[in-house]
Each structure stands twice: as structure tokens, then as C-alpha cells.
């Protein structure tokens, strides 16, 4: 059985552990053995985004110590993968040895759907769902990693599922970490647009690959449209995970 290292972001660890469990279930079903290093914490993205570079460097060093020797690292969060891939090397502008280690790790980092489709060459994971779904393109996954076709391929291969278009699928949902809390007026307006587009898509379920977007869109749905759900792709694809969110 092939091993792959799991990186579970703090949002998933603390608030959405079912995404982590679904990721494990899914990988095991595809004959992959997920390995979880218990020393892992947070990739440092909150510090980078808030401008705390020194702190972010420490977080990055910790991450590199934990994951640096792994052949492949997969994570159910594209923004965290972007942090490691793109921001870590920038953080170590003046520390060549750490920069080298960061650059070596970068190509071994994968977002979950990217890993399934591009690395494992899997599209049909054997899941089924009778209904219409639509897909929200998370900014870091779409523009950061260039991942858009991969999740759609996985969704289309799910038996009984119809993938319907989402108007302005590529528009940001308004999460942005601290942005959602610090600029609630703008963020609220953005997530409202996203949810309106979802409601008018005719889909039964909104799928996405980013825990941050899920907290934002899911949190808005929970408050304002309790009958409608958003779900991480891992929970959609893993057996018995569909009621997860």
C-alpha cells in the first residue's frame, strides 16, 4: 500500500474534523495509506495574511521539520497548500538553507482533488448521489493552484449526480480569513451574492474544496437558509460521509 502524508489544516482539525475523516476514508478506499504526523499544527497562513512574518517563519520551519522528508503531502485545503508551495520560499529570502528546503517541499504538496486526479489518475471514486450539485471555485484552488477541472471530473463521475453551473462560480465568497471578521459589511455582501447564485442554480447541494469557504458559505446558510447545505468534496465522495456537513 502506498503511503501519503496527510496535512490537516487547523480549520479542519478544530471545526470540521469530518472533512479529515472523509479524506482518510476516501484515500484508503483508493488503496492509499494516509499517514498523519501528530506533530503537525498550523501552516502559518493566518500569520502571513495578518503581516506577522517572523511568526510565520517559525510556523513554516515547524511545518518543514514535520513534513520535509515526506514523498507526497496531501491536504483537503488548497489555501494551505498555496501557503506552503508559494509563501514558504518567499518567507526565507534571507535564509538560503530553509529556502532550499521549502522549495524542495513545494512540488510535493497537493490539494486533495488535484492529488486524486493528477497523481492517482482517478476520476470515478465509486460514489453515488442522486441529485443536482453545483461547484464553487475557491480562489486559492482556482487561481493559486490552477485546479478547477479536477474536482469537476470527480463530481461528474459520481453516479446519479448532475453537475449544474453556478453563476459567478469564480467570484470570491468573501472569506479571506481575518477579512470576514474585520470587514463584515463587505464580506456579508459577498457571501450573500454567492448564496443567491447557489439558490438560483437549482442545485440541491453546493460543493467546494476549501474549508475556509465552507465555514463562510456554510455559516451563512446555517443562519439564513438552514434548509440548504454546502459540503466539502471529500465528504461528498467518501462513503457514508454525505450527511457530514
Amino acid at each position: 500500500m502506498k503511503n501519503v502524508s496527510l496535512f490537516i489544516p487547523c480549520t479542519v482539525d478544530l471545526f470540521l474534523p469530518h472533512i479529515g475523516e472523509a479524506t482518510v476514508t476516501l484515500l484508503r478506499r483508493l488503496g492509499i495509506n494516509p499517514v498523519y504526523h501528530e506533530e503537525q499544527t498550523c501552516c502559518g497562513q493566518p500569520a502571513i495574511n495578518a503581516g506577522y512574518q517572523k511568526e510565520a517563519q517559525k510556523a513554516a520551519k515547524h511545518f518543514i521539520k514535520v513534513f520535509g522528508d515526506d514523498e507526497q503531502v496531501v491536504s483537503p485545503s488548497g489555501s494551505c497548500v498555496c501557503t506552503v508551495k508559494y509563501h514558504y520560499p518567499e518567507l526565507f529570502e534571507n535564509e538560503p538553507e530553509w529556502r532550499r528546503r521549502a522549495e524542495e517541499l513545494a512540488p510535493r504538496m497537493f490539494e486533495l482533488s488535484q492529488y486524486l486526479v493528477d497523481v492517482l489518475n482517478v476520476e470515478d471514486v465509486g460514489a453515488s448521489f442522486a441529485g443536482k450539485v453545483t461547484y464553487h471555485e475557491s480562489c486559492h484552488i482556482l487561481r493559486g493552484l490552477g485546479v478547477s477541472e479536477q474536482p469537476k471530473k470527480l463530481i461528474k463521475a459520481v453516479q446519479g449526480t448532475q453537475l449544474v453551473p453556478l453563476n459567478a462560480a469564480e467570484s470570491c465568497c468573501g472569506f479571506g480569513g481575518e477579512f470576514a471578521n474585520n470587514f463584515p459589511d463587505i464580506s456579508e455582501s459577498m457571501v450573500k451574492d454567492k448564496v443567491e447564485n447557489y439558490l438560483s442554480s437549482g442545485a440541491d447541494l453546493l460543493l467546494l474544496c476549501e474549508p475556509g469557504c465552507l465555514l463562510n458559505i456554510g455559516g451563512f446558510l446555517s443562519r439564513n437558509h438552514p434548509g440548504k447545505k454546502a459540503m466539502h468534496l471529500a465528504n461528498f465522495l467518501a462513503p457514508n460521509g454525505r450527511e457530514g456537513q
Partner: protein
Amino acid sequence: MEIQTEQFTAAVKRELQNARSRAFLKVMPPVLNMKRDIGLSTFPNIDAAQAYGAAIRQEAMARLPELLEEFEKNALANGAKVFWARDAKEANETILQLAKERGVKYVTKGKSMVTEEMGLNEILSKNGIEPWETDLGEFIAQQLHRPPFHIVGPAINVAVEEVCDLFMAKANMKEPTLDPVQLGYAARLFLRDKFHHVQMGITGVNMAVAETGTIINVENEGNIRLTKSSPKTQVSVMSLEKVVPTMKDALHMIRLLSRNCTGQKLTAYVSMDSGPKKKDEIDGPAELFILIIDNGRTKIYQDLKARDALRCIRCAACLNICPVYGQIGGYAYGWAYSGPMGQVLNPLLLGLDRTQDLYRATTLCGACKSVCPVGIDHPSMFLYYRSKDVLGDPYWKGKKRPSSEKRFFKAWISAVTRAWLWNLGIRMVRPLINKDAHDGVISKMKGPFQGWFRTRDLPAMAAKTFHDRWKEIKKI
């Protein structure tokens, strides 16, 4: 122009409740984006065309001092007079002096963001010289005393009813009308009269060509051409980053600018001035002044990371794609430059202390970067500004962050680097976070995270984190 960048949050609230702005923003950006897509599709290879533009601007910035010298030499050889101004004050004084020396009563102006940046109109008015904006949108914005809503269409959001009322109040026309063509005609009649007797015209510069000493303006209304060719004296104000090495470079940048800006292959008017009217020529200005203004650019130039901001050619593609601009419009940015390009430029020109909201009011979604024809990485710039701000960087006037935030990140990092402390911390924080949880959902929370809970729930913190669950999962 009055700088109101500190009032971002209040302006956001106001604009989010402005039904007119909201309705307008739902329609305008998608239309402009569609036009842009169609315009760009006329390039055989869009990515290559954009990358070529980025390379030209990158080269121009790398060679900036040398190119400016070359431009000045060639402009002088063409018969233009070149002035240099370190800041807005010097630039305004130079223009004022030129106007006074010539006994000018009023000037006509082509739309120019740099003169907005300088506050030139206010200075001229105060000294008894009336500045008349001749771009229709700018003409309306000027009379309404509003900052530009959009850098390309400054009054694009103003309702025809409001324009009608304005023109009636200012006696620009005699009979009220809601017909845009008639309204445009009224402005045109009024401005034609101004052009007729104008002594001095002031415009900006879209591109300056080092190898030929030529300045180039692009526009669609013809007003800049009239402003440049009607008066005896032409003053062209150019921020020093506008220079490109060759005419070939300039032509490519015009192709890019037009397509990214309005979706046109080329704007209706492109005027190129290489010096004043020659002896055997029948029209054109008798004297041409080119005013090259620094106003903080050299300071930007000296910081290699910040320097990328100087690549901007003001096409506004980033405004039209920006989800934040798409909600709040241009007023909230509080100055001449709005949207992502304003969020990149204003902090460097005004200081990080006065613009904290600008570089923080972004989700870092990267849409701006994805459309930028000159390769500016806006999200990366925002992160840079934030890091300089946290350090209280004196060069960029970082303000430093609240001590509570600093304490949070200090505590956070000691836990991030020690998994045992991280997991202990989680166990300790959980009851506090979940204090008001019901059925696995938190709907309210006092304290620093109130913003989130105003319209959103949060799942309660899991009784068992993934880390805890792993101990069971790994055995299966």
C-alpha cells in the same frame, strides 16, 4: 482632491446601502469584463500579449532613470520644455505660475488622475483660475464635487436624473431632459465654448516614449485632443513612471490598455505630441510644457518590491474584476485611485498609516493579479504592506498593530511550534469558544470575533479534533 482614505469603513457602509450604486455595480463590472474578454480575444495569443506588456513595463521600471533622461533629451530636442517637480506642491506651483504669467482666466483639462492626485483643480480655483474638466464623466464629477467612482468612468454611476438636475442648476442647459444624448450635447455646447477661447490646456499622459520624446494620450471623446490642440499653451503632466523605451513598446501598451480598459482594439482618439507647433505647421500649441512629477515615485522606485506598483498603466481591469470593488464601488477608497490598483498605489503614495483599511480590505482572492496586463501581483503587495505595517516600518510609515493582536500571534506561534502545547491550548480554549453553542452550532460570540457572527454561524469546536480522532482511526 481631498484624501479620505481613513473613512473607508464609513464610506463602505454608506455605499452598501446606496441602492443606486448597488444596482449599478451588479451590471457594470460584468459588462466591462465581457467587453474586455472580447477585446483580448483579438490577440492571437492573449497570455503572450499580456506577458509582453508585463515585460515592457518591467524593463521600463528597471531602466527608469536612464529612460527619463533619454525622454527629456528627446523632448527638449523636439522643442518641448520639460519641468521636474518633486511633489504636488512644486508641480501645482509650476502650473500656476505658467498660467499667471500668461494671464490665463481658465484652463480646460483632459481627464488625468495625476492632477487629481496633486489636487491641481483646488489650487487653480483658489487662485482665480477656473479649471474645466472636459471629459464628460469628469465634468459631471467635478460639478458634483465627488471623487471618481471608477478611474475610467468617474461618474459612470451617476443617474441621468441627477445629471439633468445638475446641468439645470448649473445653467448648462435650459430645458430638462433625460435623454443621455441631449445631456451630452448640453455639456458639449458648454465646453465647445470654453475650447473656443481657451488659452491653456492641461492633460495627463498615458505613455511617454523615451526614444522619440513623444507623449501619448488615449481617449474616446476627443476632448483631450481639443484640450491639447486648441490653446496656445499645452501643459502635459506626467507621473514619472509613464515612460516606456520605444515607440514599438508604446504601441503595444496602447493595444493592451485599450483592450483591458474598454475592450476596444484602439480608443477613438490617440494623440501623439512630439513638441509644439513647428514653423510650417498650421495648428497645435505654440508652446508645450511637459511636467514630470515624482510625488513619492522615487521613494517607491528605491524599494525593489514596491517598485512593481509603478508598472500600473491605469487600465482598470482590476477594478472591474475585483469582488470587493464590485460590492462597494470607488468612493470608499477615498482618493483618485480606487479598486486593487488604488489599494496597491495609495498606501505607497500616502503612507501605510493612513491606508490601513485599503491593504487589509481584501480577501487575497487574486482576481486582480489574474487580469493585470503588466504583471502586478497585488495580493503579494498587500501582504508586503501588512508585514511592513506590523513592523512599524518608518520608510513606509507603518502604524503598528494593536497590542492585543500582537499578543495573540505571540501566543499562537508558541503553540504552533509545539504540538503538545497546541493540543493543550485547544482543550483549554474549547469551552470558551463553545460557551454559547447550541446543537453543534455557535450563533453569537462577544469579543473580537463579533464581525463574523453578525450574519454567520460557526460549527461548534469539535468535541474531538481530528488529532484526537486519529488515535482511533489509525487502528482501523
